[in-house]
């Protein structure tokens, strides 16, 4: 879609399409049960992480194997500020969590963007594992493998207007939180879409396509990579922030490298060369993983097979392949 919009898919058509999808997402919880609503909430949350991740992979051409670091930083920052500072407002959690992620992403990014390709990937991986080992070993701060609980009942949404005390509060939380996440997701997607189609976004794509030439049209390659890295980290951090209250607990697992792998997986599944690919991939992956776990204890094996088949059969991902088929069909019917 990055290319389709570049060649002039009119903006009103994109807006219409997005509005229709948003309306469907808004109606959906009325049609499905609470469990499905929770699953969809998780999917939307992960979609924000994948969108952030793909600013680096799809747009800047940098494969990070350490995005668990930013997801985890967001999650742990929320855990710390609710536990240690008694913060109840979700909005404060978001601001605090994003600040925390920005600091970590700025430091890690500064080191990582000095390199590209495999060296970049290994560095991101190594740095994320530093955070994992800290969360793992400093158990008096982080609770170690027990993690930190963040009861949803302690939180309030929209500046304290919506809280979850008393009978039936869990049910209320699930639906209220779904719409909360949906709004944050919609706003994040719009922001990322604008960034991707801005002059800055074009500069990132130029760097991806040809680093040398990008320098020779006057782009400071390293600085742009660094800024992209920070934006990417903040989006993934936001995802971690939103994930914590829903999960009710944060453990070092979300800082561990296989979690970074899942973010890579969902982005590739959806298709990293299109803007909407990571969104579709994240939601699809979330269902895939949930049902794989429910159906077999060898669920990792099942996911592994899916990934191998995917890379071999649909290298453009779900969205890329669908777009290609649609274009073929369009030519065929003409």
């Amino acid at each position, binding site marked *: 879609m990055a290319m389709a919009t570049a060649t002039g898919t009119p903006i009103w058509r994109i807006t219409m399409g997005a509005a229709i999808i948003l309306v469907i997402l808004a109606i959906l919880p009325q049609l499905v049960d609470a469990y499905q609503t929770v699953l969809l909430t998780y999917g939307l949350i992960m979609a924000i992480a994948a969108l952030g991740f793909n600013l680096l992979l799809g747009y800047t051409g940098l494969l990070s194997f350490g995005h668990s670091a930013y997801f985890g930083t967001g999650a742990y920052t929320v855990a710390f500020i609710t536990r240690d500072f008694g913060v109840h407002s979700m909005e404060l959690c978001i601001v605090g969590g994003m600040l925390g992620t920005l600091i970590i992403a700025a430091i890690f990014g500064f080191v990582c963007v000095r390199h590209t390709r495999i060296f970049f990937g290994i560095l991101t991986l190594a740095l994320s594992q530093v955070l994992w080992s800290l969360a793992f070993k400093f158990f008096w701060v982080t609770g170690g493998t027990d993690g930190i609980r963040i009861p949803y009942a302690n939180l309030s949404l929209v500046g304290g207007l919506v809280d979850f005390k008393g009978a039936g509060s869990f049910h209320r939380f699930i639906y209220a939180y779904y719409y909360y996440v949906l709004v944050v997701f919609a706003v994040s997607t719009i922001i990322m879409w*604008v960034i991707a189609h801005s002059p*800055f976004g074009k500069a990132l794509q130029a760097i991806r*396509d040809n680093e040398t030439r990008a320098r020779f049209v*006057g782009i400071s390659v390293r600085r742009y990579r660094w800024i992209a890295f920070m934006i990417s980290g903040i989006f993934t951090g936001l995802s971690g922030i939103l994930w914590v209250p829903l999960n009710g607990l944060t453990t070092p697992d979300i800082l561990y490298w296989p979690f970074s792998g899942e973010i890579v997986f969902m982005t590739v599944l959806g298709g990293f060369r299109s803007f909407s690919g990571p969104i579709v991939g994240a939601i699809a992956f979330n269902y895939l993983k949930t049902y794989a776990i429910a159906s077999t204890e060898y669920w990792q094996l099942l996911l592994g097979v899916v990934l191998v088949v995917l890379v071999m059969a649909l290298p453009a991902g779900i969205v890329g392949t669908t777009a290609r088929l649609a274009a073929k069909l369009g030519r065929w019917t003409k």
Partner: protein
Amino acid sequence: MTLLETVHLKKYFGDTHAVDDVNLTIAEGEFISVVGPNGAGKTSLCNVISAHLIPDSGKIIFKGRDVTHSSVIERLKAGIARSFQLVNLFDDLTAFDNVALAIFSREGKIRNMAALAHRDREVAIEADTILDQFGLASKRNEPARSLAQGERKLLDVALAYALRPRLLFLDEPTSGVSTREKDKIMDIIASVVRGEGITAAIIEHDMDVVFKYSDRIVVMHQGAILAQGAPDAIRNNDDVAMVLLGSSGPDAFSRKE
């Protein structure tokens, strides 16, 4: 008026003297060609002048200022832009986006992440004008990778031109295309460059092209300047004919044809 001056410029790679004590002067508004056999140091000279390579010693003076140690971006701001021998484009971006990107960069708008690139009318008009000048208007929405070799060559030059440089260094703008296309490409380049009064230096192998379009020809051999002068003087220079053609005597260049 002198635009660019190199003073005892040197760049060695081990025993290879890629640029060996080169004193080159380019005047404002000149169209010069740099010729020489393979390995003569033409591209190395271009690389050193455009800050792609750091010289071992010597100075580069541009518009009276010493730019020897300034970065690529500083030299672009001063007004030195270049194209590449092996086409260097943003392959997944459209021809329009390739040119627009250079304009955004030149205008300092490239940092903007809060506006849609396609909504900038000024940039769009200028990019379309440039594509038109280079005969690429019909390829506006094609990704750069799908263009033909000749069109890619032109787009590469258009990208450098869109930076509105004072000095445009073109590294073999016609290599790898058919003879007929060569003339077309050179006609376009010459008309744009002459029309806008840009100082241009092209590296070129084809002596027909060189004799036809240049004000002055600089012949390089083993990293050093062997001879320089107007096309007629170079055509009748025995040393040059010996180096470039392997034979000399009157009308060596015509006989070759």
